């Protein structure tokens, strides 16, 4: 029996005629919530491609779908090289083979970290495009050879067309389905011939999302929707402080007698109630009367963090990250003309719309897990460790993820479900409420920066000293990724957007200071660049403003040595009609960043122009023009969706998001005190995809970082107000979109 529902959806009609396979494209789609199902017979041609005798092509996708479009773009690459007919394609999540693992970080290889199966860091397309093209070409080649064996022909006489091998002389043809059984027995050519780009039929096309229909009728299975036989439901109350532990539980006996309740399970820092239904478990956990012990972190507060931050910025304890020229000497010699700014960003929460949850069945033969899992390898490893089992005993069934943004890489919630399920002996779905999700996130870290500069006679930076401090993400979760020097270790993510910035600055000194805190951290969409690019680009905007030079021209001057950067900057300015005068109530800001993938995996150039409208109530962000050079674009429709959503996500960070702490715990609990951008606040987005002959570069995170400094630059231009803290003051941005 399939443990979770399989979905069979036909889509027909109602599709744009311009896309690949024509207006009648039909995609019978099933996306299994499990890696294997007992469906029709099929033949595995490669690790990625199986073909059923009926002609149905099953394309494997190893990257969980959290909204970024992996279930569409990655099979699209396979289908192109395979020459498959898209209307006969079904997509299935796959795991368990080395082919699905990627080397995530260059230094990870150096420290012996093996490749892993995970989605994240905007890596999927960059890391997998070539591998998938090879797999598609290998399968196509095997099918051709299978046909030639059957016909007794030379391979040179055979070609393929949309799911058929064709004898080019006679016109005879055999379908992939008819050939699958014999093709599966042939060895694969390790070096198959890839299509020349001019023959791409699907790569580069705006293929519709394969997951859209199921997401529009409620049939898409997210983790929260998993139902397995004999399943119970659990609610949990976690110690509010990060160092907390469970103390007295006052009403355990009364709760155990409540309707539907099966068991109260105590973990070191949490109490869960297992019941027939979630609503019963939730009521029971609310009635438990749990006392918690705060632990040593019970005095953590935002005031305390702010004091540590200011002390670090004023102190002299930095670890040198880079030193180009004589920045410190020049700044000391010209102390009276130094321009100084300070900036700060808070901790923030991922807050995916689907609160974290997992369903686990701990058995003697295996540990079965269903849920919204962003990293297959991390989940297998952590669940096995917590239960004292082997990682290969953990069987994962990855569902759709209702948002993640990095959150669901960390399997703390799966481990909790596993520990509870182990006590019960039946499958248990553990779901956190929004409050538990928000107060026990793994947060995006805080950061602050002091920037000091001396400018030349024209107003351009001659010497810059950047000091960044904050709770180090790498020190907290990836110590092996720290860069170690004789002065100490520094965290690349803390100075991203500064130490690797693209502008011509002859003398540049960057240092970093770790402020250890008990706050649990993890990567969040765009990671350190959200802070670093805000600091740096806001400072550049200020230097331009003080020099009375146009913001765009100022950046052009500093990027003259970098044609790729200039190309996107010019593209954004042109699309925004930068030179044209604006109405008196409209003001513009601009920002640029080159987003560098983890370990140097890719370089994506991004430039954005923000248009603010000044209304009697305050500013409204009216329009954002975004130009991106992301190399070869597999699916423009998906890339544009990432640009649109990424800008909206960044506006939430810029205008709203702030996690604060009192008495060791998070103050915010739900959307009223941790608000998200609303429909009425979403600007018009204009996306420009710059032509590029580079291979695919990362997209999912790259557009976020320039948003805040472009908004800040526009405000500076409009009212001479300098914004130095995210989120920006709500009262400044109360304008309604017109």
């Amino acid at each position, binding site marked *: 029996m399939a443990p979770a529902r399989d979905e069979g959806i036909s889509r027909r009609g109602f599709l744009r005629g311009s896309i690949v396979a024509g207006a009648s494209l039909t995609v019978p789609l099933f996306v299994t919530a499990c890696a294997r199902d007992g469906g029709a017979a099929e033949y595995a041609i490669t690790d990625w491609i199986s073909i059923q005798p009926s002609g149905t092509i099953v394309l494997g996708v190893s990257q969980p779908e959290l*909204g970024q479009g992996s279930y569409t773009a990655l099979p699209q690459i396979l289908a192109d090289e395979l020459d498959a007919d898209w209307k006969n394609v079904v997509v299935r999540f796959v795991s368990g083979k080395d082919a699905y693992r990627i080397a995530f970080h260059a230094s990870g290889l150096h420290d012996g970290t093996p490749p892993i199966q995970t989605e994240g860091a905007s890596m999927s397309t960059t890391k997998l495009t070539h591998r998938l093209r090879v797999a598609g070409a290998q399968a196509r080649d095997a099918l051709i050879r299978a046909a030639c064996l059957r016909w007794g022909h030379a391979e040179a006489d055979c070609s393929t067309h949309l799911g058929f091998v064709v004898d080019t002389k006679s016109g005879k043809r055999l379908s992939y389905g008819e050939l699958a059984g014999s093709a599966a027995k042939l060895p694969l050519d390790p070096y198959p011939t890839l299509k020349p780009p001019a023959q791409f039929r699907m790569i580069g096309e705006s293929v*519709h*999302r394969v997951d859209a229909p199921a*997401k529009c009728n409620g049939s898409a299975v997210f983790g929260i929707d998993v139902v397995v036989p004999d399943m119970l439901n659990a609610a949990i109350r976690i110690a509010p402080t990060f160092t907390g532990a469970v103390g007295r539980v006052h009403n355990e006996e009364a709760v155990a007698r409540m309707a539907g309740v099966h068991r109260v399970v105590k973990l070191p820092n949490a109490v869960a109630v297992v019941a027939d*239904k979630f609503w019963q478990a939730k009521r029971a956990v609310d009635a438990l009367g749990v006392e918690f012990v705060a632990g040593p972190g019970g005095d953590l507060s935002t005031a305390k963090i702010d004091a540590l931050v200011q002390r670090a910025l004023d102190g002299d304890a930095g670890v040198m990250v880079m030193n180009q020229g004589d920045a410190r000497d020049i700044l000391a010699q010209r102390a009276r003309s130094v321009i100084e700014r300070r900036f700060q960003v808070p901790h923030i929460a991922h807050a995916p719309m689907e609160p974290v949850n997992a369903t686990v069945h701990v058995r003697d033969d295996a540990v079965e897990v269903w849920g919204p899992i962003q990293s297959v390898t991390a989940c297998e490893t952590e669940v096995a460790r917590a239960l004292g089992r082997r990682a290969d005993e953990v069987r994962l069934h990855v569902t759709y993820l209702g948002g993640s943004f990095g959150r669901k890489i960390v399997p703390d919630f799966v481990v909790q479900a596993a520990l509870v399920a182990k006590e019960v002996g039946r499958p248990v779905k553990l779901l956190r409420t929004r409050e538990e999700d928000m107060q026990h996130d793994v947060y995006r870290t805080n950061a602050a920066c002091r920037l000091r500069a001396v400018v030349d006679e024209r107003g351009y930076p001659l010497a810059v000293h950047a000091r960044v401090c904050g709770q180090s993400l790498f020190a907290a979760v990836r110590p092996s990724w720290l860069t170690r020097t004789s002065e100490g270790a520094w965290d690349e993510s803390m100075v991203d957007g500064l130490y690797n910035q693209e502008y011509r600055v002859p003398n540049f000194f960057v240092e970093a200071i770790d402020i250890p805190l008990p706050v649990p951290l993890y990567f969040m969409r765009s990671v350190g660049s959200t802070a670093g690019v805000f600091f740096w680009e806001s400072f550049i905007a200020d230097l331009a403003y003080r020099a009375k030079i146009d913001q765009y021209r100022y950046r052009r001057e500093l990027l003259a040595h970098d044609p790729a950067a200039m190309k996107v900057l010019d593209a954004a300015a042109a699309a925004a009609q930068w030179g044209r005068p604006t109405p008196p109530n409209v003001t513009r800001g601009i920002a640029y960043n080159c987003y560098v993938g983890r370990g140097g995996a890719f370089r994506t150039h991004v430039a954005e122009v923000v248009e603010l409208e000044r209304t009697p109530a305050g500013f409204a962000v009216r329009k954002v023009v975004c130009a991106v050079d992301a190399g070869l674009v597999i699916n423009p429709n998906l890339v544009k*969706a990432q640009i649109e959503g990424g800008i909206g996500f960044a506006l939430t960070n810029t205008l709203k998001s702030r996690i604060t702490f009192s008495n060791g715990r998070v103050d915010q609990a739900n959307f009223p005190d941790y608000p*998200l951008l609303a429909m009425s606040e979403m600007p018009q987005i204009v996306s420009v995809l710059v032509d590029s002959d580079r291979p695919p570069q990362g997209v999912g995170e790259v557009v976020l970082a320039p948003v805040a400094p472009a908004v800040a630059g526009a405000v500076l231009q409009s009212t001479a107000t300098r914004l130095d803290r995210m989120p920006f003051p709500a009262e400044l941005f109360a304008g309604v979109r017109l």
Partner: protein
Amino acid sequence: MSVPFFVNGESREFDGPDDVPLLWVIREHFGLTGTKFGCGIAACGACTVHVDGQQARSCVLPVGAVRGKQVTTIEGLSKALDHPVQRAWIALDVPQCGYCQPGMIMAVAQFLREHPAPTDDDIDAGVTNLCRCATYARIRAAIHAAAGRKIG
């Protein structure tokens, strides 16, 4: 301890306390999981359903309040994904993670009955569901596209 009502046109009965939120009754007792849990306090709209033709955020609506009423969930909006809002959503590839979209679609379906040709200001004021992926630009475009068609 029994609440009879109609779900997607079928007569159903919930055998339990009448203060259980409608959301959990339809998800856990009737197996209709298209309606989502997002916040539990009617702040995000992921749980939006129709009750007698009006939008309702089911995470705070006690099941007792729908006694004898008609509840429509995303599963009942259309039989073949052919409601104009669903058609527009698929045509414009609105969903990203998709978690909020059933609630969004239900909210917009009802909104368009009241505003058959909405302006952007109408949309800003009348569509208040939250989307963390910020698919709002496509939602707006899809609302305008759906507004040109008959709302069933």
